[in-house]
């Protein structure tokens, strides 16, 4: 079994990072042996789509459980589609979080713990300048699509993730189209 924990530094003594998609590192731990692998989260500074891309990366590592501080709807949906349990509200040191999970003190969530775009730095400036439609559009244009689907996923997991992505993109497209209509009517 593998547990992924969002972390502020690459070791078991690091603190749990409260963000999922934009955390600095992931520590992937075998809870039986406490052997671990530290992963740099290349999506931490992504312009958009960090939650989904990070969730895909985690799914590709064969992880069964994610421990983190908070998890937004896009990441949560992608992780759930891959059959990964998500536990939020976790804080403190990584090794203590693993011990708490092993002791049955941490339970998986049935839903995301925060809204979209939690943990994005500088969100206010971007949102105000470009308007609602722009902000959302920028969030989804990056790092998505079937080309980057991790190879370790089963066919069923990949289909589930793709369907969930298609649904989210469809919603974003509707919002952009609504905003376009609003702007065009206003001319």
């Amino acid at each position, binding site marked *: 079994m593998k547990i992924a924990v969002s972390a502020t530094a690459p070791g078991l003594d690091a603190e749990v990072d409260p963000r999922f998609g934009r955390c600095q590192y992931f520590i992937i731990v075998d809870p039986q042996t406490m052997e671990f692998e530290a992963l740099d989260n290349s999506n931490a500074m992504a312009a958009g789509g960090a939650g989904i891309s990070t969730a895909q990366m985690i799914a590709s590592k064969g992880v069964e459980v994610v421990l983190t501080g908070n998890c937004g709807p896009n990441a949560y949906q992608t992780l759930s589609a891959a059959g990964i349990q998500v536990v939020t509200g976790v804080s403190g040191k990584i090794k203590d979080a693993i011990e708490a999970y092993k002791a049955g003190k941490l339970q998986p969530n049935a839903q995301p713990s925060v809204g979209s775009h939690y943990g994005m730095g500088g969100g*206010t*400036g*971007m949102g*105000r*300048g*470009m*308007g609602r*439609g*722009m902000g959302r*559009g*920028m969030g*989804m*244009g990056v790092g*998505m*699509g*079937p*080309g980057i*689907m991790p190879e370790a996923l089963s*066919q069923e997991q*990949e*289909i589930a993730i*793709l*369907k969930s*992505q*298609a649904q989210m*993109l*469809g919603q*974003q*497209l509707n919002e*952009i*189209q609504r*905003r*376009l209509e609003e*702007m*065009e009517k206003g*001319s």
Partner: protein
Amino acid sequence: MGTDPFAPQMTREQELDFLRNQAEAIKEELDQIDGRIKELETE
């Protein structure tokens, strides 16, 4: 919150262009995803 003096300013036309480009990019992405889903479902 208040006004952010460092927020990027865009004209209405720029925003419209951006939104149209985004819509186009998302449609392409959706087509790719649909194609991949069909591919996987027929495997």
